[in-house]
C-alpha cells in the first residue's frame, strides 16, 4: 500500500506546477490547462484521503469537481473565443481593460 504522504507530495507537486503555469504563461489556453492541472491535483488528494480513511465521500466530491470543471472549461473557452474575436489575440496581456 502506497503511503499517503507520497500521494500528497505528488498532488502538491502538480498543484505547484499548475500555479507556475498560471503565473508564468501569457497564453490563455495554457493558463486554462494549468487550472485543469490544479483541479486534478486536488482530485488526487481527495481520492487519496478517501482511500486511506475508507470513506467514499471524497470520491463523490471528485465527481462533483469534475462536473464543475467541465462547465468551467466550456464557459472559459467561450470567453477565450470571444476575446480572440475582440482582440485578434489570446494573450492575457491584451485583456487589461476591465470594460469590454
Amino acid at each position, binding site marked *: 500500500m502506497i503511503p499517503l504522504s507520497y500521494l500528497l507530495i505528488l498532488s502538491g507537486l502538480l498543484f505547484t506546477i499548475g500555479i507556475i503555469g498560471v503565473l508564468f504563461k501569457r497564453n490563455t*489556453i495554457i493558463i486554462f490547462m494549468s487550472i485543469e492541472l490544479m483541479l486534478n491535483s486536488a482530485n488526487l488528494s481527495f481520492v487519496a484521503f478517501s482511500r486511506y480513511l475508507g470513506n467514499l465521500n471524497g470520491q*463523490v466530491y471528485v465527481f462533483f469537481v469534475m462536473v464543475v470543471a467541465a462547465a468551467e472549461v466550456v464557459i472559459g473557452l467561450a470567453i477565450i473565443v470571444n476575446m480572440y474575436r475582440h482582440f485578434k489575440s489570446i494573450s492575457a496581456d491584451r485583456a487589461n481593460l476591465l470594460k469590454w
Partner: protein
Amino acid sequence: MEMFLFFFFAFLCVISSLCVVFLKNPIKSAISLIVNFFSMGAIYLILNAEFIALMQVLVYAGAIMVLFLFIIMLLDVKHTLKEEIFFKNNLYLVLSFCIVFLTIIISVATSLYNSGLMAGLKGLDWMFIDNSNTKAIGRILFSKYLLPFEITSLLLLVAAIGIIVLGKKKNT
C-alpha cells in the same frame, strides 16, 4: 509491484505536467495534458477508485481535451506564438512563492506520515459493495448526495445557456 507502478505513473504525471507548462506549442502541451490525465487515471486505479478513473479518462481525456484541441485549432496558433512571453520581471518572486508553497505541502504530508492517520480508520470494505466501487458510489450519490446531484444538473443547464449566449455573434 504497486510501488513500482505508482512511481512510474507519478513520474509520468510530473513530466507531462512540466511539458504542459513549458512547451511553446499549445497543441503539444494539450497532448501532454492528455498523457497527464491518463496517468492520473492509472493512479486512481492503483488507489482502487475505478469509477473515478473511468470518469477521468471519459470526461477529462475524452470530452475536455477534445474541446481544448478544437479551440486551439479554431484560433490561430501562430499569432499567439509571437506574443508568448514569460513573466520575467517577477520570476524570482514567483519561484520563491512556489518553493515556499511546496515546502509547506511536503512538511504537512510528512507530518501526516508520522501521525497514525495513514493506517486506515474504517478499512476498505466500506468502499465496495458486491465488489463494485461504482455500485457503492451510485448508492451514496443517489441517497446522501441527491440534492447536490440535482443542483449539478442545474449548473450544467446554466453552462449550456451561457455558452449559447457567449458564442452568439454580436451582429443581430
